[in-house]
């Protein structure tokens, strides 16, 4: 119960998923960049944010499972959201060789890096607060 309250009822699970997504995305982008001159290669992307938004939205029907055998009802929980790599149906040829646009990939790489660092720092802050409250001291601002 304590574990549930301390770790799972915090933003931690969401941050964890987001870090996983950033890591997968960095690999996918690295692969797209490595294949920037491979003829016929098709760009890969990672979908995560939309699924996470659906899982976190409060407008949908919501069911809660109190037993593992219960059927899932309504929107999926954060635990079921997984970053997924897919090949978008994109017939454009920005480089003339395949559909990898190197500038776009570079921009996405920088974005992914910043998102990853943001997630790490957020997590760090959560644990620092937790630590401070356990030790009974105030966080320096």
């Amino acid at each position, binding site marked *: 119960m304590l574990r549930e309250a301390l770790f799972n009822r915090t933003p931690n699970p969401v941050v964890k998923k987001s*870090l*996983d997504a*950033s*890591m*997968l995305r*960095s*690999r*996918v*982008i*690295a*692969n797209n*960049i*490595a*294949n*920037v*001159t*491979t*003829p016929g*290669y098709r760009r*890969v992307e*990672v979908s995560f944010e939309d699924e996470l938004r659906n899982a976190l939205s409060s407008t949908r029907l919501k069911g809660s499972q109190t037993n593992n055998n219960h059927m899932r009802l309504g929107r999926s929980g954060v635990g079921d959201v*997984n*970053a*997924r*790599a*897919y*090949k978008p149906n994109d017939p454009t040829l920005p480089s003339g060789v395949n559909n990898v646009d*190197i500038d776009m*990939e*570079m921009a996405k*790489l*920088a974005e*992914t*890096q910043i998102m*990853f*660092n943001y997630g*790490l*720092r957020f*997590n*760090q802050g959560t644990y620092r607060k937790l630590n401070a409250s356990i030790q009974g001291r105030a966080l320096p601002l």
Partner: protein
Amino acid sequence: MSMTGIFSGLSISASGMRAQRTRQNTISSNLANAETTRTPEGGPYRRQFVVFNAQSDKRDVRILNKEVALEGRSSSSNHMPIPSSNFPRDERFFGSGVEVSEIREDSRPARMVHDPAHPDADERGYVAMPNVNVIEEMTNMIAATRAYEANVTAFNATKSMLMQALQS
């Protein structure tokens, strides 16, 4: 993300760097031999070029599933996943970098240059020069350099992410 996959981003970028360096080597060879009329195979030097091949990522899936005895392979997206629903789906679509599958010789005809004084000239005074276009090679060299740099940037980004994760 399993432990086995942590450094695969680095090796993906490394494969891209290796491929572009191989391409750069063939370009250097082409430029060095732009005027070579004699080769061990006979005739003028022929332009070489690399063929890139996107690598698939079957290996990672197997490592991730090592503890599972039953192994299933889905060849269609409608197949039921075996053994479990948490089969690492994200590995399915993207590969593990790029490789140079072969280095081929350009089949374009040799460039005929009129030079009767040349020892390799034929009876009409024409010399068969390599089918290397120096300007084309220069353009390819710039493209290879830029692609290499892009891979270095991706490599550094992955590395810095891993370093940040260690430090926090």
